[in-house]
């Protein structure tokens, strides 16, 4: 809604109007949303041009590679969607895009699994990053369901064999009463609309959480580096990536960290 004229008499917002909220108007939902969003993810945190010095390993590129493979999966699927599900059986161009769709899916899972191994061995959930891990695993699970419905949407021997086999598992959970893997139309809809949206949503939240919380720091390793190493990792120069904040998942304070040593 835009009600601009005449300018309303400035409301008394108190001596210090909330930062980020336009002065002189009553706070709007939109304004509040903006304030919250910018506070959670200021531009230099959303798109940083530096990373902590410990971010120096090829293992870190597998998140980006997974995202890239996801993009190719979506794009090749979109091309197939232009002509419909039967196109690739009768056209060499269609077959090529189907091949791209298959191989990008293989690469997507390949990179995602390497990414998952890497994040596991870094214990990347530490320090209020549990939600990042959880959304990542949920994206993985939703991807498996999406790939499964893709196999069912191929209209070939694979589809009929996989659907007639998988029905027993799905039926055993009770879900088969509502989610009929033998119904091609239903499975195609899930494959090209519902499940990609779910995967995209989980990936989106996951990436925003990564940006919000930053890349997990190394273990302050007493055994190898000695007390000095631990000290270096808590008291390096610079203003830091963000003050230790208290919140749902963060229940320690720096002082408690030092007493624990």
């Amino acid at each position: 809604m835009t009600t601009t004229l005449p300018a309303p008499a400035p409301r008394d917002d108190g001596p210090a109007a909330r930062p980020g909220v336009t002065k002189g108007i009553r706070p709007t939902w939109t304004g509040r949303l903006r304030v919250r969003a910018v506070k959670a993810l200021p531009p230099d945190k959303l798109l940083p041009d530096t990373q902590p010095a410990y971010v120096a390993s090829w293992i870190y590129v597998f998140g980006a590679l997974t995202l890239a493979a996801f993009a190719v999966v979506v794009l090749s699927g979109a091309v197939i969607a232009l002509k419909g599900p039967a196109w690739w059986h009768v056209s060499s161009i269609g077959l090529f895009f189907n091949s791209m769709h298959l191989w990008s899916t293989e690469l997507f899972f390949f990179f995602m699994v390497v990414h998952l191994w890497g994040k596991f061995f870094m214990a990347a959930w530490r320090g209020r990053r549990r939600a990042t891990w959880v959304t990542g695993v949920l994206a993985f699970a939703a991807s498996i369901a999406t790939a499964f419905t893709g196999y069912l949407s191929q209209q070939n021997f694979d589809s009929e064999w996989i659907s007639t086999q998988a029905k027993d598992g799905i039926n055993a959970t009770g879900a088969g009463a509502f989610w009929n893997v033998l119904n091609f139309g239903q499975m195609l809809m899930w494959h090209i609309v519902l499940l990609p949206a779910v995967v995209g949503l989980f990936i989106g939240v996951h990436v925003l959480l990564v940006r919000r919380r930053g890349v997990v720091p190394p273990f302050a390793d007493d055994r190898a580096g000695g007390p000095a190493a631990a000290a270096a990792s808590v008291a390096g120069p610079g203003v830091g990536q963000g003050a230790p904040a208290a919140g749902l998942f963060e229940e320690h304070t720096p002082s408690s960290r030092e007493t624990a040593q």
Partner: protein
Amino acid sequence: MSPRRFKPDRDVTEWTGPVARYDLAKEVTISFVVVLLLVIAFAAIFSSPDDHPVTLKSWATAMPVDFVQTAVTELDGTSPTATYGPPYNETPGAGQKIGPVSLARLAGVHIPINTTEDFVIKPLLTLPNAPALDSQVSRYESAGVAQRTSWDAAYEKAIAAASFPGYLKVPSGRYGPVGVMMTNLLAMARSGALDGALLSSPQLYGTDYTKPLLFIADGSYMSDLAANLHLQGDQWGMMNETGNFPGQAWLWLYTMWYQVPPFNTSSSGDALVWAVMMLLTLVLILVPFIPGLRSIPRWVRIYRLIWRRHYRSVTTEAT
């Protein structure tokens, strides 16, 4: 909020040390180009598999006797689909269980299928200009249960010794109208008409293949083809693809359970495997919350290699 004890597998002291130039947008862009080129190369070099589906027509053409042997079990209600239970029909005792609970039974019958009617009688009645067949179908439908059972049993016995020297040759027996019905159903299947009849929907347009797929899955033809392609459940088939293509390697754990007891011997194997996999998925989701499990990375110390430059630099700075 009173500060809790610092746990190294849960908590960190956030980094306040040096930072380095790192170009995320460039990384993502280069990743995209590299992946796109890889995918184009793979697609051009390896293409993708596309094995023809089995149809009722191809099955009845390749294995006519197997088709009729299956069809008569659809008629007399002894086929796997006819006795499946929920969600397709009510069959006492059917439906897999986890302990005492059958989720399938709780969900109930939502895709009702009566194989006698849906797979045999209704398709036969779509055949035009077949008064002789129609009268045999009426005779079967109006007969009592005992009479029908006796005809069905006689035909099942006869079809076990049948052959197909260009036509269906069944030893004679007291199977009443069943012989004519089965001969016509086979002819219908071999012409392709049965594929269409099982799809028929009141709206003309159809996308639901439940009936033909269940019928085909009751026979041996598709299953034999799948066994040759290493796709059977007991061949770790869930992670395999036709030909030499890689399959769904990410299903390794799910398909593994089907190879070992008690899952591969239980009549509720699917329900048990699903229960285990749902539990394990939950465990994977909750790794950060599970003491012991979340300590594994600290114990195996692979992180020392990943962050070796960092640990080297903190030791040098310390000395």
